[in-house]
């Protein structure tokens, strides 16, 4: 969670109300009433101009909670009708984020702006610093021509009075791939061809305008229909709620799920295969290198003239992990050149969902984590039926009045290793691969702690050269800073989450060697 507590509080309250409405005798009517219950007649208006706008915004937010796109809302359809449509829906949408555009209005466009602090000085360092001729002086003050400005910020640095500022659009700044933009009309919209579903925009927007399209109704419906709904809880979930993961298992079952599996069980498999793959790949790289050297010597070696030798084939001297959903989307949409370096091992979710579907063919599987991007992975994996984030699970506990710390402990059928349970931390995945190797010294991990423009450039460079920095040969990529515990749908703060998971992991067994 971040410092945008208020917007998240509203989103969570709406989720609780949606779940309560679903559990009531009249879902449609209760859903319709959500904006009125939250902003009743006569209530002091907390944020907007009037109670009507407050209600309209809450209605839009409720749409996302019911799983719909806010942009596609034509506003004439009531929440009651939407609730009905949510119940009738058979499929979920691939577009997993939606923007409440009327909440965007208060946010200025991204531009460089000269404030009143401009002294109209004689030196005019702003003008001389601008390579694009965008600054002129009008009435003794500097003025920026937006059509010429390239937003390089040289003038911001040059002004001795700090009079020039960059006006930020938080969602645009947070997006590592330029997928969210405020258009000419001032509304933000998501380019889904570019979006990697990381959810950084959901955490960055101070108006809480970006929403995940929840699948909670689809999940509740499956439970109500008596299906065998199985929760797969990610390693990071162990740090998201009060109590321990054994009490959490009981709590989730109390909420209506048939059974609960630790995704860490799948993480043990991922680590095992990834360690094997790492050994194979490094042997292959060595072989390639030797082969090329032999050829080089045969073709004349040092005596050969430049240009006589065939170009050195790219030797892949490193492997990257493959379990971060945001990273996988990045590879597919923006970084195809790194694909040959990415481990072909499945994600922990891949293995655990496969195991469950084999054990219980009619199971409905629900992946639970603080990750936003997993909705994209869940959508493309037929073994994952639904995805739920920790906020939604928390809302379900509240709506069902479940007190986790009062629940009995229940063991998991397969106990996971310490290393698998640490998968949700930056460094945890590389560590588990290392610990799986008989000779741990052959691996030199390099960690990408959070995807941003800079770290994406770094990855691209590695992919082009076939070399990582400092002789490292294993790159772990975490889309979120801190790892999954820094995800964009977390309930607990990172430090506390780490503490909680540490105490669980320290009491767990070591990972098996390959």
């Amino acid at each position, binding site marked *: 969670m971040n410092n945008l507590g208020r917007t998240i509080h509203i989103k969570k309250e709406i989720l609780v109300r949606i779940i309560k409405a679903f559990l009531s005798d009249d879902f449609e009517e209760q859903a319709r009433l959500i904006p009125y219950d939250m902003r009743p007649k006569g209530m002091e208006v907390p944020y907007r101009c009037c109670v009507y706008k407050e209600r309209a915004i809450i209605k839009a937010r409720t749409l996302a909670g019911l799983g719909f796109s806010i942009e596609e809302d034509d506003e004439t359809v009531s929440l009651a009708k939407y609730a009905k449509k949510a119940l009738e829906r058979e499929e979920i949408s691939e577009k997993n984020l939606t923007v409440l555009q009327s909440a965007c209005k208060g946010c200025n466009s991204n531009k460089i702006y000269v404030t009143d602090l401009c002294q109209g000085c004689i030196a005019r360092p702003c003008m001389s610093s601008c390579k694009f001729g965008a600054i002129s002086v009008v009435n003794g003050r500097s003025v920026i021509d937006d059509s010429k400005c390239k937003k390089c910020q040289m003038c911001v640095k040059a002004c001795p009075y700090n009079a020039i500022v960059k006006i930020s659009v938080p969602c645009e700044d947070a997006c590592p791939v330029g997928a969210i933009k405020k258009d000419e009309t001032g509304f933000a919209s998501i380019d889904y061809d570019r979006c990697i579903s990381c959810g950084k925009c959901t955490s960055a927007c101070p108006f809480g305008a970006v929403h995940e399209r929840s699948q909670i109704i689809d999940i509740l419906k499956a439970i109500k229909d008596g299906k065998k709904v199985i929760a797969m809880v990610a390693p990071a979930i162990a740090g998201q709620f009060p109590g321990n993961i054994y009490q959490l298992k009981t709590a989730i079952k109390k909420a209506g799920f048939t059974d609960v599996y630790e995704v860490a069980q799948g993480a043990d498999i991922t680590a095992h295969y990834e360690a094997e793959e790492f050994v194979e790949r490094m042997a292959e790289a060595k072989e390639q290198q030797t082969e090329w050297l032999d050829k080089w010597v045969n073709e004349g070696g040092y005596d050969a003239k430049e240009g006589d030798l065939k170009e050195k084939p790219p030797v892949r001297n490193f492997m990257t992990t493959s379990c971060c959903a945001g990273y996988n989307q990045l590879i597919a949409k923006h970084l195809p050149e790194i694909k040959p370096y990415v481990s072909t091992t499945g994600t922990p979710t891949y293995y655990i969902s496969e195991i469950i579907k084999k054990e219980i063919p009619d199971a409905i599987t629900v992946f639970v984590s603080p990750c936003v991007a997993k909705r994209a992975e869940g959508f493309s994996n037929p073994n994952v039926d639904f995805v739920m984030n920790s906020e939604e699970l928390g809302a379900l506990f*509240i709506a069902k009045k479940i007190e986790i710390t009062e629940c009995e402990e229940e063991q998991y059928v397969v106990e996971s290793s310490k290393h698998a349970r640490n998968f949700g931390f930056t460094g945890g995945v590389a560590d588990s691969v290392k610990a799986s190797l008989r000779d741990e010294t052959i691996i030199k991990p390099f960690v990408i702690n959070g995807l941003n423009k800079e770290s994406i450039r770094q990855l691209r460079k590695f992919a082009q050269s076939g070399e990582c920095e400092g002789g490292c040969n294993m790159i772990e990529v975490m889309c979120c800073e801190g790892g999954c515990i820094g995800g964009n749908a977390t309930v607990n*703060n990172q430090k506390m989450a780490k503490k909680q998971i540490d105490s669980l992991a320290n009491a767990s067994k070591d990972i098996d060697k390959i």
Partner: protein
Amino acid sequence: MEKISVKVCLGTTCFVMGGSNLQELNDLIPKKYGDKVEVVGSPCLGLCSINWEYSKAPYVKIDEDVITEATVEKVLEAIEKKLGN
């Protein structure tokens, strides 16, 4: 002077609605106020069950006063007031 007692509700509802961030108070309060203020994390204080007011969670109790939608800042402000600062 009697110690001021700060009880941070760590029941599921309060925790999920933002109480998780209040755990910071466990470090912050002793550092700031020494033994003048005592802070404890508490199992559900039962405040959300009165009319099921989950929307006002998280709750913190300072002596007998209840703070709704508590934040670290709100709690510190209330302590300062009690201490007469």
